[in-house]
């Protein structure tokens, strides 16, 4: 009896290891960065997949909110979409604060989302560079860390941005603001 029980116990971890109904990494869409910009009257959500190629693998979805963009992206553009490894959320300065707050509120309910992902504002040139070269994403992340070291009051991660909004402080708080006019620059931008 103990031998059979031991064999069963050894078998269970294999069964539970996830090899059954697994998702191959080639078919999974691991999203590394999401950018939000204004185009015409609506918002454009761009999902950048994790890739080893020089040119980014990006899919743009016009939507009214992050929630709708996720649904559309998963249904029409990127099946097997995963936000578990999302590291960077970029909002163009033109995006309305109301829409940004609604997105932040929605994301907080998503179990797979990492609260330590970075959130920053940016201009149109940064988003253009982001769509052209994959290395721009890692460059932005490096710059964001430098920015935080130089200016500790800047709210860099999603968690602190969410808390700053939730506390409804009468004063505005600082977030990272990225501009790209030839070379990339990061400064502290005010979030009202």
């Amino acid at each position, binding site marked *: *009896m103990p031998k059979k*029980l*031991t064999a*069963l*116990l050894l078998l*269970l*971890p294999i069964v*539970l290891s*996830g090899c059954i*109904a697994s998702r191959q990494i080639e078919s999974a869409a691991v999203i590394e960065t999401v950018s939000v910009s204004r185009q015409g009257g609506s918002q454009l959500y761009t999902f950048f997949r994790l890739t080893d190629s020089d040119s980014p693998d990006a899919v743009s979805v016009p939507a009214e909110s992050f929630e709708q963009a996720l649904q559309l992206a998963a249904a029409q553009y990127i099946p097997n979409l995963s936000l578990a490894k999302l590291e960077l959320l970029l909002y163009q300065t033109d995006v309305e604060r109301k829409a940004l707050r609604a997105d932040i509120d929605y994301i*907080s*309910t998503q*179990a*797979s989302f*990492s*609260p*330590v992902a970075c959130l920053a504002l940016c201009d149109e040139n940064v988003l253009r560079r982001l769509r052209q070269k994959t290395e721009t994403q890692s460059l932005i992340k490096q710059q964001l860390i430098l920015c935080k070291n130089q200016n500790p009051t800047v709210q860099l*991660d999603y*968690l*602190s941005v*969410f*808390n700053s909004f*939730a*506390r409804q*402080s009468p004063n505005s708080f600082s977030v990272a603001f990225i501009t790209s006019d030839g070379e990339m620059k990061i400064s502290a931008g005010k979030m009202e």
Partner: protein
Amino acid sequence: MKTEVPFSSKRLFMTLMLCACAVILLQNHDLSADASFWVNLLSVFAGLGVCFFYFLPAIILKKKYNTDVMTLANQAGTPLKWATAVFYALYFLFTAEYFLIPYTDMFCKKYYAGAPPCLIALAVLACCVYAAVKGVNVITRFGIFLFVLALVTNFLMFAGSASSLRFEENLAFRGTLSAFLQNSGYFITPCFIAAIYVCLSGYTRRFTWRQPLTALALTGLKYALVLFFIAFSAGEYAGRQEYETYLLSRVAHFGSFAGIESFYMALSTMSVFMITALLLCCTCRGFQLGGNVKWTAAFAALLFFVRFIAEKFDSLNELFTNAALLNGFTFVAAVVIPSAYLIGRKKHA
């Protein structure tokens, strides 16, 4: 059938402390948002104070007569023996479900989306049957390793979250009486360890008063630290999350090493495993079936069946995760029945 060898009372209390700490590992929206950190701290003191009161009848039985309720029940007449055994069996099976349901839910929601909760429950129960057959002594030895893992995990969780501590606006003493009472009710939940002690204290030797006090003090310290980091590191974001303590393992950050969910899941898995195994041991002890593989497996099968049904019916799920109900049953199991046996023993003496 195996006969347990007496082992150190200190080791049993360390195991019970780890079981009590598991309550906050599986915490899910049971604390009122109307109470600030300081009010919650008062609730911890109140809850664990009640827990000490729950321990008293079993401790007096142990200290004065060196026995426990199950031994006394077996010495009493057959109807009383069976009534006691059946009540405790039902109580311990209810308590095991109370932990098994939130654990399997958390595993599927937070860690392995898509996995059927029943399959996770089956895996945990299979291991628990093996451990319960081996006996309480072996489980408490396992507790020594779990204690070390708990230290490492808690250190990683708290040290990694320390960099994001924010004290602005969170330091106020704010709370209502109803919030205080609700949260105190939550912190009375660990009293189930007193009911375990009621059944297992007969196996132990060298009891001192310092042991329960140290176990409860360390449990309180763990709760206070978790509450502190949830309030000042995760902040308002924690209020939006299911399983708030789990969030601490996600925001813990050491440079490129971000998030220590695996450590957290390992600790909560082992804690639930230990609680369920101990509860199976207690259930078997009531019927004098300790070490009996078939009966232990039968009790585990009953647990699995209830878990399976609870997945289908939400009302059953809510019933088995109702803290007030558990606290009510615990009062009977840890205070009323041991006190009755204590009075009976005094009269008999």
